């Protein structure tokens, strides 16, 4: 797939690294050059410096050819604007935007933008952990653990997996 990710914070960068490893063509856009340092070592992704909610920037990175578009900056409004431009102007089929305000997430879901909110995802998961409803987070926690061990190993290859 041709994947365009706006926002190279920790989430955007980690996802870009994962998808790049799987062989997808990934481009990451961020306004801050330093943000690209979040990318995992050896990531096979293209980086582009610019505002991902800007029509010209999105055209320059080939938004019209993207199969998947993810808006993952720290600003809910920028994410929702970028996602709507991708969907309504460039015709991207699969568009996902982060909106940490759950109310905005729900409203824009109604407008056809797939949204998720870290706020509610974490709250639901943490409540389930406290209630020991292991089935809620089982698969998620297992995959998270695998990924974190792998990432930690890549940064300190001599030490092997962290002692537990």
């Amino acid at each position, binding site marked *: 797939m041709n994947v365009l990710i706006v926002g190279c914070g920790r989430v955007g960068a980690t996802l870009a690294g994962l998808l790049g490893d799987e062989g997808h063509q990934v481009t990451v856009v961020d306004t801050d050059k330093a943000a690209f340092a979040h990318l995992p070592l050896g990531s096979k992704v293209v980086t582009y410096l610019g505002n991902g909610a800007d029509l*010209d920037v999105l*055209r320059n990175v080939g938004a019209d050819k993207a199969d998947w578009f993810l808006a993952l900056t720290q600003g809910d*409004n920028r994410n*929702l*604007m970028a996602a709507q*431009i991708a969907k*309504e102007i*460039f015709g991207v089929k699969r568009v996902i935007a982060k909106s940490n305000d759950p109310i905005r997430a729900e*409203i824009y879901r109604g407008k056809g933008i797939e949204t998720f909110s870290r706020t509610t995802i974490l709250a639901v998961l943490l409540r389930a952990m406290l209630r020991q409803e292991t089935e809620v987070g089982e698969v998620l926690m297992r995959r998270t653990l695998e990924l974190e061990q792998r990432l930690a190993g890549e940064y300190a290859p001599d030490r092997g997996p962290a002692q537990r």
Partner: protein
Amino acid sequence: MYVVVAGGGEVGFHLAKALIEAGHEVMVIESDRRRAQWIEEQLGSVVLNAPADEGRYQLEAGCQRADAVIAVTGEDAKNLVICQLARYNCGPLGRVIARVNDPKNEIVFKTLGIQETVSSTRVLMSVIEQELPVGGFLPLMPLTGSQLELIEAEIAPGSPAAGKPVRSLKLPDGALIGGIVRGGKIVPGVGEATLQPGDRVIVFAPTAVEADLRSALFG
């Protein structure tokens, strides 16, 4: 009229002040506590100290009964979301107006359902361009249900397109000249038809290629 002004920066403050002086009822939504306090000292109890991009505060400010909601923060993405949420929260009755800082966002906002926009950049440009022989490039409207828009471009004497036949223009993919307005009449914009200074060219084009179209006509 009752007007909700979202954003209490320079534009928002002076707009609210002018509206009050003209006898209108106003509520300013400003998230910065000190700025909100300062506006209240100047204008009285017409400030809600809250983020304007959250629906609950739009309702608290009385957007449901507002004749107009105007988003005038310095950030285009925020103004877009404020206006879209106002439409969602406050029903279809009142006017919803957005300030856009980057003029190309005017067509973006229109495509995304916010029809009324004000671009200070565009206003200043039009003042300057009355003095200079520069061709105008004006996105007229988005075409509903498509990623297309309708654009009017006025050919200036110095424009690289002036004097050239339509077939020699390097228009971007998907762009089509619908016609040329010359002396109040429509001339077909095809093949050997030559563009003349003063012509107004009507073009259908994907919004995504607007910048390429601009450079094809104006260099």
